[in-house]
């Protein structure tokens, strides 16, 4: 690949008229690759298309800890930004570039894309239950903005696509907080009860000691659970308006889970000892999640919605909740296996009570 050299450029001034020095080395030749000419794909010029040559080489341990862009000719004395996540396996996931492009392409607007004027008046118990669910979701969704934000500024800029993806996650979660807050208020109801139990789960995620522990708790455990709550939300949505809200939110959440699953896999591949610290975090996280998932507030609201009204809590609501709990935790354990974590033989989750068939897991990962 030709270098950025142009010998025809000469006799350039060394100083500005104000007496400031000029540096023409960027014009006369750098060590950076030049003339890449990436070919846009059918959808346009993607980050995958420009990941050519050194621009696409994501090093295991980048030599610099600065914000200098990967592939540039970087000054040897570029400052250390104090990054603490400097190894690829600490932040990367093999699917993160594609997920970033997917996230950019699938952004939506709670203002524009939800047909708010088609909401319908609902029975009081259903409206209250929907508003309670929206209160919980509005509260917990912002953890998935705060957590990446807490760690992003400590991530080496060499892994810029991972940071860009996390930036889309932050936007996604802001939109979720936005759309559920709007839904709570939009149909004659309002925000209802914020239970103290919810905050315990959020604190455990936010206070994780390492990013990989935090990612396991957030992306794999927490968002995997919320993904299934969104699936339930779509199932129990009283009108097509709520269905669209939950479907669009579900799509976002599934991207975050996909990143987390593959990040954990990469983290363990890069350092097998990390598996122990992830297990330790999930040991605690799963208990908090059980407390959260069975909280009297959330489970009673879901029981009304799943039953289709307060008169069907016991004959429809609870049985459906039980069925869905089996699905939620089966999905979670399967994702753990995919991430390279055998939780089946370690978890304290009440697998038998949850109706989970442990023989269905091969325990070797995919």
């Amino acid at each position, binding site marked *: 690949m030709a270098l950025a050299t142009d010998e025809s450029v000469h006799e350039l001034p060394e100083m500005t008229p104000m007496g400031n020095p000029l540096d023409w080395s960027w014009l006369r030749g750098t060590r950076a690759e030049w003339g890449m000419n990436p070919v846009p794909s059918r959808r346009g010029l993607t980050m995958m298309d420009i990941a050519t040559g050194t621009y696409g080489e994501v090093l295991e341990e980048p030599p610099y800890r600065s914000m200098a862009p990967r592939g540039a000719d970087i000054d040897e004395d570029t400052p250390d930004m104090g990054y603490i996540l400097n190894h690829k396996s600490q932040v990367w996931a093999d699917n993160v570039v594609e997920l970033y492009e*997917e996230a950019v*392409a*699938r952004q939506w607007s709670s203002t524009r894309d939800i047909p708010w004027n088609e909401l319908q008046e609902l029975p009081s118990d259903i409206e209250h239950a929907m508003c309670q669910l929206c209160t919980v979701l509005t509260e917990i969704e912002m953890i998935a903005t705060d957590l990446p934000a807490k760690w992003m500024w400590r991530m080496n800029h060499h892994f810029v696509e991972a940071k860009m993806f996390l930036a889309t996650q932050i936007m996604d979660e802001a939109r979720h907080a936005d759309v559920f807050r709007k839904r709570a208020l939009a149909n004659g109801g309002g925000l209802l009860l914020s239970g103290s139990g919810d905050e315990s789960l959020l604190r455990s995620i936010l206070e994780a000691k390492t990013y990989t522990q935090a990612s396991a708790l957030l992306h794999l455990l927490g968002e995997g659970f919320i993904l299934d709550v969104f699936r339930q939300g779509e199932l129990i949505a009283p009108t097509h308006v709520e269905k669209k809200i939950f479907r669009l939110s579900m799509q976002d959440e599934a991207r975050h889970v996909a990143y987390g699953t593959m990040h954990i896999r990469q983290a363990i591949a890069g350092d097998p000892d990390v598996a122990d610290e992830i297990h330790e975090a999930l040991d605690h996280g799963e208990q908090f999640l059980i407390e959260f998932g069975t909280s009297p507030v959330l489970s009673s609201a879901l029981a009304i919605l799943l039953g289709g009204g307060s008169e069907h809590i016991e004959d429809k609501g609870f049985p459906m909740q039980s069925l869905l709990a089996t699905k939620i935790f089966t999905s979670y354990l399967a994702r753990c296996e995919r991430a390279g974590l055998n939780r089946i033989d370690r978890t304290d989750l009440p697998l038998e009570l949850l109706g989970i068939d442990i023989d269905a897991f091969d325990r070797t990962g995919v």
Partner: protein
Amino acid sequence: MSDRVNDLAFYQDLADLMNAHPDQYETLGEVDFTLGVLMAAEGGNDLRLRLRFEDLGCADVSPLSEGGEASCDCWLEGDTDSWGEMFDDITTNGRATGRRTINSLTLVGDRIDVRGDDPMGVDKFFRFNQTIQQFFDGAAQLAPSSA
């Protein structure tokens, strides 16, 4: 409608509809997803097809061989009666409603389930769910003669 759900041409009509209106899918974003559909019918006339979604369209509708579902990101598995009821609901109401949306049907999973060899492939079903739902909802727009 339910009399066409075993007909590959019906899904090609849905694909043609999607491909003719990429603008309706643009706000949902591009897709890279291969979905299998395996619906058992009495008498052995099972529905087995592969839907390949690329960018803003459905690039391929083709029959799925025995065991071919392994080449899909994930697949839907159930019976043609339930599958047909989903499309009847779509044509009656203009879109899937209540518990007959594709997410709802597979979440309960008693009649139609989503399966896959890789949880990452199954999760694509959720990542692209609005697009998939809109694709199936297209059945409401097919002319009665083709329905």
